């Protein structure tokens, strides 16, 4: 709780900087528009203005600074504009009963969430199975681990367009599948590394104790290794779900998808509606925050139930 005040201060600074940046970012376009509407601008021609810095433009045309904060297609919108757009495409549509129409960000967030969760489930399963194999088999450890590390230095996004094309050629029309594969690729690695660490975390004395109880290898796995890996698992799950969301959005970006938050960003870019891009970005941020918070809460409850954390 003692962090609340500092966090709020930093947030206020960020929002302040954002507001301060809006005027210089938008002033050129604003002045062009104002001139077309018949206003007197110094310097007069657009070409002359290109030679002048934005700061000078702001000083010479103070009357038009206000307009930079209320453009319909700003280069940089204000936080309030983004918030309004976000509300218009979520809350307002829910209130008018169209919460799930394809213009609503809730619908697109749902599409993105589905792929994210499928990819997360797939990646987590692969990661856990891989970790168990690595811990129990020296061959797998020696041959798989270096490649797992190398696989993460490969920019998967290079593969994204291709995964989608290939899966459509194989007759998979549902876009959830390729997006989930990309998500799984990004999210299995943190889980794998965390679980390997966790499964190896029991001390030798503890493993020896189980041996004196005549416990089998499987019992040792169930009663000692698995429970002691849980804290590691949750830490990596939080990294993994964020990675899975990035994977899904990347899977939606370059490929002409029509639904999903990434597709909203793409469409906003193509139709020149920056507010739509910003609102989709904000929705993605909220989604990421919600998912990580949810896992964080699950972690706390689970660990408390297991008696690991007071």
């Amino acid at each position, binding site marked *: 709780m*003692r*962090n609340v*005040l*500092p*966090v*709020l*201060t*930093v*947030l206020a600074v*960020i929002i302040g900087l954002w507001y301060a940046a809006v005027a210089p*970012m938008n002033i050129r376009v604003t002045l062009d528009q104002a001139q077309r509407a018949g206003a007197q601008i110094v310097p007069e021609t657009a070409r002359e203005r290109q030679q002048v810095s934005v700061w000078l433009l702001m000083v010479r045309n103070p009357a038009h600074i206000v307009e930079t904060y209320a453009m319909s297609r700003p*280069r940089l919108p204000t936080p309030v504009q983004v918030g309004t757009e976000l509300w218009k495409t979520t809350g307002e549509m829910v209130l008018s009963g169209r919460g799930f129409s394809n213009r609503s960000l809730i619908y697109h967030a749902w599409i993105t969430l589905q792929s994210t969760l499928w990819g997360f489930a797939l990646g987590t399963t692969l990661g856990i199975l891989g970790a168990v194999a690595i811990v129990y088999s*020296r*061959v797998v*450890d*020696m*041959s*798989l*681990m*270096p*490649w797992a590390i*190398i696989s*993460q*230095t*490969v*920019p*998967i*996004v*290079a*593969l994204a*367009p*291709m995964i989608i094309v*290939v899966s459509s*050629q*194989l007759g998979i029309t549902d876009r959830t599948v390729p997006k989930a594969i990309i998500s799984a690729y990004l999210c299995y690695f943190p889980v794998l590394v965390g679980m390997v660490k966790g499964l190896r975390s029991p001390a030798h004395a503890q493993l020896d104790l189980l041996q004196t109880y005549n416990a089998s290898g499987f019992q040792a796995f169930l009663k000692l290794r698995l429970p002691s890996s849980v804290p590691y698992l949750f830490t990596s799950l*939080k*990294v993994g779900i*964020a990675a899975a*969301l*990035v994977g899904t*959005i*990347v899977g939606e*970006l*370059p490929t002409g998808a029509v639904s999903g*938050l*990434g597709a909203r*960003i*793409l469409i*906003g*870019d193509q139709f020149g509606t*920056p507010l739509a*891009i*910003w609102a*989709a*970005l904000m929705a*993605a*941020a909220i989604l*990421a*925050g919600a998912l*990580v918070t949810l896992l964080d809460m699950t972690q706390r409850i689970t660990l408390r139930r297991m008696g690991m954390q007071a």
Partner: protein
Amino acid sequence: MNWLTFALVFWIGAWGLNSLLANSGWRDTRAVRVFVPVLFGVTLLVIWEGLVRGFNVSPVILPAPSTVAQTFARSTGLLWGDFHQTVVKGALTGYAIGASAAFVAAILIDRSAFLTRGLLPIGNFVAALPIIGIAPILVSWFGFDWQSKAAVVVVMVFFPILVNTVQGLREADAMQRDLMRTYAAGYMQTLLKLRLPAAMPFIFNGLKIATTLALIGAIVAEYFGSPTRGMGFRISTGVGSLSIDLVWAEIFVAALAGTAFYGIVVWIERAMTFWHPSQRK
């Protein structure tokens, strides 16, 4: 089916050899540690080749590794041009700018304990966000050439490096700081001789995470508009025109660049933090 049997036999043979080596007396020698994963990689390639040839997979869906290798050898000039545009101009420039900016920002923020407490949670949160989505915005701000790619990379690498550096600067413990004080060391001396060296492992952790992000940022930004060269451009147009072998060659270059970039940072880390327990043999 001949190719399939060969791939299967090769797989079993390689697996047998690997498990023999991994459980033998030489398992901790350097040669075995390198040989086992290499053989595993080769096996994957052989299986891939065998499956593609055995099932007659259309090269439009999945080309065989040999085809990709031929394409790679044939178009080295083109690939080098793309590499230069995306990695050298876009990713490396952005990485250098973003890392230095994050480093300077971290040292400034570190002077205030209040700001540090506020920044760490926010930084950690931002590092988990899908920042890649701002690519189209930055491309429309900075134009189609490499500057916009570098800008995307700057934003993507900034927060991981910032958070890690700030955390690292808190690493030197009170006892060590007190010792510096008894030496009458000033702020700069303490920073240079104690706290920055102590922060090095954390800084390098951030730098390592950022290598992959830099390449991802540079490539994705090219999907939103680029001059007619660059790896992202080639991949998106290659997929469109179904020259999948060229796309795979480009992916191979990306993989090579990513691994090399990461490897170089790890190498510098080893040279600079040789004293840290995690680096000791």
